[in-house]
């Protein structure tokens, strides 16, 4: 590496490294603010335990539903030309750019309309109940999942799918037997992004689901509730817990995304 390379790469490292340092410093500050004893105390609280379980379940449900819509939407947007495609692309940016509170408010208003009320009356309660938590998380998380999969399908050559068609596949068979397995890593990545977004979702959940303890409280709400009553130590303990959960789940998903982890018997 010559001097010019060193200076250029060094400048990039300084600029990028500052951000990495900021994240590490925030995590370290949380870590030093609390103690294992405080963490255990927080974990022992029934309300926080409930919030942990609801967070895990709702984020997982939201991520699963996100994938169910992100795979078809990502594929259609990447592979097909159709009228209104630009409009749909713009619509999908709304959950990403809109302030989270506005997403929550919009959901709340949507569920004041006659069809939604009819649904709630005859099917099940959504607003201020567990389904509202999942829906609030999903409405934002799915948009991120769509973008990940749209990019992945755009980068994949359509050739293998076309060959599958000539070999006897219907379009659906080619998709499920060839395209989807080849997009496996992207699907796992989209799931991970959707799950992580759902874990951290706060604004829409607060507005659409409320912050009722032992009913619609998720960990992001817990941080807010603990902070609002001045229990900073509990808020930090829960924040740390969220970081640990996110790291653990993302690590597991990253491991699953590696193809040799799925089929270790096959030589790569």
């Amino acid at each position, binding site marked *: 590496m010559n001097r010019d390379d060193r200076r250029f790469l060094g400048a990039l490292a300084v600029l990028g490294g500052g951000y990495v340092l900021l994240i590490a410093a925030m995590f370290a500050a949380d870590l030093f603010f609390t103690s294992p004893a405080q963490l255990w105390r927080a974990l022992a609280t029934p309300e926080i335990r409930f919030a942990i379980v609801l967070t895990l379940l709702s984020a997982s449900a939201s991520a699963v539903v996100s994938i169910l819509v992100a795979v078809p939407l990502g594929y259609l947007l990447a592979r097909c030309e159709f009228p209104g495609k630009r409009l749909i692309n713009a619509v999908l940016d709304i959950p990403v750019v809109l302030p989270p509170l506005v997403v929550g408010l919009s959901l709340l208003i949507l569920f004041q309309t006659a069809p939604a009320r009819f649904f709630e009356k005859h099917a099940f309660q959504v607003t201020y109940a567990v389904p509202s938590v999942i829906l609030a998380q999903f409405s934002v998380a799915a948009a991120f999942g769509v973008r990940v999969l749209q990019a992945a399908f755009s980068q994949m050559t359509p050739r293998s799918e076309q060959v599958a*068609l000539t070999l006897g596949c219907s379009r659906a*068979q080619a998709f499920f037997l060839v395209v989807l397995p080849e997009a496996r890593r992207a699907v796992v990545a989209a799931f991970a992004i959707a799950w992580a977004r759902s874990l951290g979702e706060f604004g829409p959940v607060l507005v659409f689901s409320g912050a009722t303890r032992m009913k619609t409280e998720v960990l992001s709400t817990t941080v807010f509730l603990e902070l609002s009553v001045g229990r900073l130590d509990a808020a930090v303990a829960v924040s740390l817990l969220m970081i640990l959960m996110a790291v653990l789940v993302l690590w597991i998903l990253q491991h699953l995304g590696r193809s040799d982890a799925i089929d270790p018997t096959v030589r790569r």
Partner: protein
Amino acid sequence: MITLDRVTIRAGGFRLQDLSFEIPAGRYGVLMGRTGSGKTTILEAICGLRAVPQGRILLDGRDVTPLRPADRGIGYVPQDRALFQTMTVRQNLSFAPGVRGWGAADTAARVAELAELLRIAPLLDRRPADLSGGEAQRVALGRALAAKPKILLLDEPLSALDDETWEGMTVLLHQVRKATGVTTLHVTHRREEARRLADQVLVLADGAVRPSAPADLEELRR
């Protein structure tokens, strides 16, 4: 037999119009033309991957123009081979028989037969990422032939191969043709490939396909 009868093909910004040619059953046709002249587009139209707004495509006398790719009974090897990356070589070879509902024993026997013909038996449990260019080409050929198609379409099958592998592949293509009797359309821009393999040479230039004159073919063989 491959027959194109006054076919028009739309492809992105350009159109190929009024294309007509015929490759008799069991013969090896080579379609030559410059890069970007539309050779691949013609193969894709025969496969059913491109719209044909006018004209007819007949395979062994059957009009396949309205049929979907799966129902045309063709084997197709694209230029980039497009092997199924998540599958082993064995799974790639078993794919078409599997989709077409062959039994496990018939599929296994066909894979063994192809592995011997194409000399890929030691590669059967490998993934495409672990294959050399020549090996990947042989596997792609095997995958295309697996369900015993009557028609084989090869898009620049010998491009990006070193001289030695190229030599081996031309010999192999000869052997495959002898063993299977499949009607072949091979697209290339290299005269040497036509000289080695072709019974019939077609030239695509200025949006029209014309048979190469016998004198040209003789010249190629010299």
